[in-house]
């Protein structure tokens, strides 16, 4: 089931190959609406056949970037290039990109086939060719039997497919997806995520997706650009974003995380030891990124994901660092995993998860149990921002 | 992100100019010193002064005001009841006929409404005058009130009434404590609409009026047929000013009442 790995294509890393020309390039792009700066002097490169995600909360500027590429907004400053050509001044209807709109923007007065054919008609394609292409698109999204239906007669998932087929019908160089799965329920969303990545690979297209859903970005994208307040704050593969976030903001935005503030006690063998404000000592195997030379006494943060901590009733033998003691405060049973909120003596609440690997546990954790949380020196990261 | 193009701007400017220039010109010429309406003879308020001494116009204005206030108030009550009957009345005998009667006057040509009411008053030997005009105005304006209130009744959340009943209020109490305050903006708007329709009406009043009950539009109409006069310009200016003031006040009050309502 290699497919289930989705976008994890180890060989595909054009961003590490300096000879690869960028396919889409935002060069020092700024967009202002009145005195609000939606995008602040950003440069982004996307490579051909890449699945690139812009991830961030609403209002972070990700949609504005997408709309500038589609031509609905012109940059206030800077330039956008597609396949080496500048797009400045090119109106939307002349750009070789197509967009799948949030909530789809299907034409309500046209049936499914007419919606899909709309873009082809604008091109002046011959009628017979249009029919062939529409048929092909309907097959691609498995909607052959729905060609004569109006959008209102379709389910949300079917509408989403029509929108996809309509945007792909013109064989655009780039497909832009604006929160493409936001209107679907969870199960359908998960299915569609994999379908989209399969489609992207088999068609060999460049996809640029905008989403606020980190899970969506993680599942589908080759690379993710995390945005906040009009700036891209980290561009990396999903694994790097998750395991080595560049800042507390990203660590917190992508997935669950426990963050402890502390000071560097001393540096050693490429790692460091820190004392947290909560009163325990953390040993980390790696240096914080983004600072040239961390100094002892400097304030830093330690971030650790809930699943990377081990919960036990007894203190792990010989452990003096990377262990904390607390009381089970809250338990959330999710089926595959359970979430435990552990209240430390300092008052801080730490979240840890445990895989429910067997159906029955000999000595289950329960409320008010005294427990120990421990982790390996390479389980967490230190952050300076 | 809607795009407002220069074509849109041109359309807007021309459209609004078309709507407002005639009225503006009329207002400007009401301050014309010259008796010849289309020749500017300098600024003057003499027509307003003369107006103040024109007994017949003042009488007509007084009749119009009385008819308007009375008919608008009765029409508001009847129209609100009609809206309640339509929205909350459930099934009753002749419901289709009733809703037909509520909506028909909205599209009925005024000449027909006027003619038919006159024929009724003649048939039952009712002396025509102030009361017949008022009844006529109530009849057609209550339907406008009904439509305005009905749309409000249809749009508000029924669970509010259910909550009141659930908390122990009687149906009647629920109506006065919950329903009426909620539909109040529509009821007020309905009253204003009825009042303005009454002030405005020429045709129906002409049919149903009798001696001593000449309304202002009838007075204006008979003068206008004889030609444009600066005095009529002055009357019109005052009316426009009053209406504008009324509508603006109402909309400001309306805004103040519901500051947090999102569209």
């Amino acid at each position, binding site marked *: 089931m290699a497919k289930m790995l989705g976008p994890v294509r180890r060989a595909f890393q054009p961003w590490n190959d300096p000879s690869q020309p960028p396919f889409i390039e935002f060069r020092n792009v700024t967009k202002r609406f009145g005195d609000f700066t939606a995008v602040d002097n950003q440069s982004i490169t996307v490579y051909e056949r890449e699945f690139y995600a812009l991830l961030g909360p609403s209002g972070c500027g990700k949609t504005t970037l997408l709309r500038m590429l589609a031509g609905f907004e012109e940059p206030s400053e800077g330039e956008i290039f597609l396949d080496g050509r500048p797009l400045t001044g090119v109106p939307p209807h002349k750009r070789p990109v197509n967009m799948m709109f949030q909530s789809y923007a299907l034409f309500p007065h046209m049936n499914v086939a007419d919606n899909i054919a709309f873009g082809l008609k604008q091109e002046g394609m011959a009628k017979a060719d249009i029919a062939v292409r529409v048929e092909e698109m309907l097959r691609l999204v498995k909607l052959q039997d729905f060609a004569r239906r109006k959008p209102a007669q379709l389910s949300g998932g079917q509408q989403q497919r029509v929108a996809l087929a309509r945007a792909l019908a013109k064989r655009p160089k780039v497909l832009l997806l604006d929160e493409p799965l936001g209107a679907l329920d969870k199960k359908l969303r998960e299915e569609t995520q994999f379908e989209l990545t399969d489609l992207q690979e088999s068609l060999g297209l460049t996809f640029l997706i905008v989403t606020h859903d980190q899970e969506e970005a993680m599942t589908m994208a080759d690379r993710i650009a995390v945005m906040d307040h009009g700036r891209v704050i980290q561009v990396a593969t999903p694994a790097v974003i998750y395991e080595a976030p560049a800042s507390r903001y990203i660590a917190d935005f992508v997935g669950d995380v426990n963050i402890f503030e502390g000071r560097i006690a001393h540096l050693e063998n490429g790692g460091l030891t820190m004392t947290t404000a909560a009163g325990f000592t953390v040993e980390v195997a790696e240096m914080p990124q983004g600072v040239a030379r961390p100094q002892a006494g400097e304030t830093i943060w330690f971030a650790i994901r809930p699943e990377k901590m081990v919960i036990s009733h007894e203190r792990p033998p010989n452990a003096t660092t990377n262990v904390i003691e607390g009381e089970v405060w809250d338990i959330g049973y999710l089926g595959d995993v359970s979430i435990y909120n552990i209240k430390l003596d300092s008052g801080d609440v730490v979240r840890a998860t445990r895989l429910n690997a067997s159906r029955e546990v000999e000595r289950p954790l329960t409320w008010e149990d005294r427990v120990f949380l421990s982790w390996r020196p390479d389980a967490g990261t230190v952050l300076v921002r | 992100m809607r795009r407002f193009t220069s074509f849109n701007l041109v359309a807007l400017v021309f459209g609004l100019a078309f709507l407002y220039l005639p009225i503006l010109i009329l207002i400007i010429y009401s301050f014309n010193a010259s008796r010849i309406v289309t020749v500017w003879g300098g600024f003057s308020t003499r027509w307003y002064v003369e107006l103040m001494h024109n007994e017949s116009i003042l009488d007509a204005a007084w009749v119009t005001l009385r008819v308007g206030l009375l008919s608008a108030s009765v029409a508001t009550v009847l129209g609100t009841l009609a809206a309640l009957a339509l929205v909350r009345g459930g099934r009753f005998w002749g419901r289709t006929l009733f809703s037909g009667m509520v909506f028909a006057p909205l599209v009925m040509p005024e000449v027909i409404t006027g003619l038919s*009411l006159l024929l009724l008053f003649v048939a039952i030997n009712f002396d025509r005058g102030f009361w017949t005009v008022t009844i006529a105005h109530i009849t057609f304006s209550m339907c406008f009130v009904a439509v305005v209130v009905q749309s409000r009744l249809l749009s508000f959340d029924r669970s509010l009434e259910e909550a009141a009943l659930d908390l122990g209020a009687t149906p009647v109490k629920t109506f006065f404590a919950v329903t009426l305050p909620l539909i109040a903006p529509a009821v007020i708007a309905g009253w204003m609409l009825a009042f303005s329709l009454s002030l405005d009406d020429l045709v129906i009043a002409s049919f149903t009026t009798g001696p001593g009950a000449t309304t202002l539009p009838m007075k204006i*109409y008979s003068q206008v047929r004889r030609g444009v006069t600066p005095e009529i310009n002055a009357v019109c200016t005052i009316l426009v000013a009053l*209406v504008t003031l009324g509508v603006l006040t109402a909309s400001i009050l309306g805004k103040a009442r519901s500051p947090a309502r999102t569209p």
Partner: protein
Amino acid sequence: MHALRSFFARRVVIAIPYLWLAVFFLAPFLIVLKISFSATAIAMPPYAPVFDGLANLWERVQDLSFDNYVWLTEDALYIKAYLSSVKIALISTVITLLIGYPLALAMARAPDRIRPLLLMAIILPFWTSFLIRVYAWIGILKPEGLLNQLLLSLGVIDQPLTIINTNWAVYIGIVYSYLPFMVLPLYATLEKMDYRLIEAANDLGATPLGAFWKITVPLSVPGILAGSLLVFIPAVGEFVIPDLLGGSDTLMIGRTLWVEFFYNRDWPVASAVAIVLLLLLVVPIVIFQKMQQRASS
């Protein structure tokens, strides 16, 4: 039915407006119907009494005369007046649509902050007296009026145009008076239209004009229909505008009815004219009613 659960209250709420409309709307209408079938006679009150019991109902029915209706078909004046009313109303409706559509579109595309103001600006003239708005045009359209003064001074024309007392003045009057009725329903449909549909059309290669014809116009058909009917229906029966702005040869049925009633004092014929006018309007009114129902459901 919660608010009206009390049986008595519910009855009263229904009965009061019901009775009022039955007495002052339905009954008068039936009287008009009745009189339109009574023998033609000049001067008032020439027709048989209305309420003389049901005893001689059959006699009454036998008395029914279609003379007035026959008369309407025999005198070309009436047919011409009906046709001319429809023609004038149609032309005015089309002109109103042509002026109103760009205006409504501009309002719908205007920035959020000023849209309520624009809406207010469109509604405000509607509150000012109809009569005043018609009257305002007399001073503008007269031979020595402001429009001619302006055009003469600009050198566009060297002779005053005769606009007042022609059908053109009537078109202008109707367009001016009923413009808000056209703009408001159009605005309502255009404003709630998802602008992303236009963007989607552009994105798929449609030019702005192409997107307008293929997306905006088809989607605003309900607004176009509603606005057109709201203009057409009252325009057909219009009296004030043709009377004040139109010429002696401007034939409109509302005016014919008025003349028949007030000057010729022929009540039965006036009633017959009214009934036919109403029949003329039944089709557009039913269409309108159907549309409203569909819109509210």
